[in-house]
């Protein structure tokens, strides 16, 4: 890679910490040191969440200023973010200072705004997936597409509780598909993914992949 090392120190620290955490899994002596690094990592992850929220705010603030067709959504997001943040601070003050029950206002926002929205989106996704399944043969018309289509229908039918008690082989077909070819394929993929994960992790550990510092 033709990328210059911007901060060799960052690379050295990343490699060193990575090796210690990895070795801590196998060498008991390093467990304490590994725990110290893990705790530091947790703090960094939490800080990253805050930085991420600031980034989210900045991105949508910029989009809002662009005055295009999507800027209205960004405005809603920015307003909602600020409002929720203020409510959260208020609840935190109430809970920590006066021992009021757990974040009641925030819970109200979660129960009556976020949860219904996300659940509705899940319902919309069910529609999207159904549509995608119907549309699949429009995009592909070959033997593989035919098998795919047939398996989708068989697994769906096998999930039913109403008829399968009368026609038990439908459920057995589903069970066989899910637990034999599908699971075998999934296991094979997972093994490949695990090998890829090891390779990626080792490349980071030896410093050839540096997602930090470019």
């Amino acid at each position: 890679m033709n990328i210059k090392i911007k901060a060799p120190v960052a690379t050295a620290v990343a490699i060193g910490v990575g090796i210690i955490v990895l070795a801590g899994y196998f060498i008991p002596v390093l467990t304490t040191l590994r725990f110290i690094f893990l705790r530091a990592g947790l703090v960094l992850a939490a800080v990253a969440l805050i930085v991420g929220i600031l980034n989210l705010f900045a991105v949508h603030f910029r989009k809002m200023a662009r005055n295009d067709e999507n800027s209205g959504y960004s405005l809603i997001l920015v307003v909602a973010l600020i409002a929720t943040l203020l409510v959260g601070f208020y609840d935190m003050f109430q809970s920590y200072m006066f021992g009021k029950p757990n974040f009641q206002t925030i819970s109200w926002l979660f129960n009556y705004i976020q949860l219904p929205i996300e659940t509705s989106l899940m319902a919309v996704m069910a529609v999207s997936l159904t549509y995608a399944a119907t549309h699949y043969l429009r995009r592909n018309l070959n033997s593989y597409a035919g098998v795919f289509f047939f398996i989708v229908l068989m697994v769906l039918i096998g999930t039913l509780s109403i008829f399968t008690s009368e026609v038990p082989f439908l459920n057995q077909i589903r069970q066989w598909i899910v637990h034999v070819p599908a699971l075998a394929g999934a296991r094979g993929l997972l093994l490949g993914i695990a090998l890829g994960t090891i390779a990626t992790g080792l490349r980071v550990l030896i410093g050839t992949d540096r997602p930090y510092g470019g």
Partner: protein
Amino acid sequence: MTVTGFTGIVIIFLFLGSMVFFTLTKDTEKKPRLRHIPAFQKIKEVIGLTVEEGSQLHVSLGRGGFTSLQSASALAGLSMLQEIIKSSSVCDYPPVASTGNATISILAQDIIQGTSEAISIEGHERRSVGELVGLTPFSYAVGTLTTIREDRVSANILAGWYGSEVTWLTTAGERQGSPTIAGTTQLPAQAIMYATATEPLIGEELYAVGAYLGEDPMHIASVNTQDVFRWLLVVMIIAGIILKYLGLNEFLQALLMGSL
């Protein structure tokens, strides 16, 4: 140390040694022989098309974090972003990157800055943008839809960690008429990508980004090493089945538990 721990160390060192071996013995004169993966060919095509049209590429890094099993997907996505920034540096519009994870958004910004400096892209307006779009799966998916629907975005590359919500992203690309190349290591999402993406990356193909797009020696060595270990696993699985039929499964179990 348990047998499992010892086995882990041995596997990791063998893996590392194999990667170094393949890197050192690589013939730099010869082009590496890698099997054809249509998705990577398509990525090269869409980068060329973007340069021709003066349009923009959208790289979605998913919502996987950096401190979990999803990190490998996230790293592959960042590798993809890096290669794409390098390849599309002459585009009228720099690629736009979106993510649903705070840590990855920071790393994406870092990658963008570092790569842009390395290939001497002057000016912030010529550099890519890394956006944290949403912090939950659906908010991320819905937020990314607006980017996909932008007129100047001509192709979408999804590389990272997704759930079932990825169906919105792939079908949105289809509706816009922009090709979508998608890869993830989350199996339910992979099934959806297979059915809805223009070109899916199956399984660990996502990890071969550096080898196919960057032709980096260490990445190519990683791919070779994975192939070697894949064959080893095949042999071990078959051997395990035979041993079980021979009635040696209890011995194996005791060995794996480290109680021998």
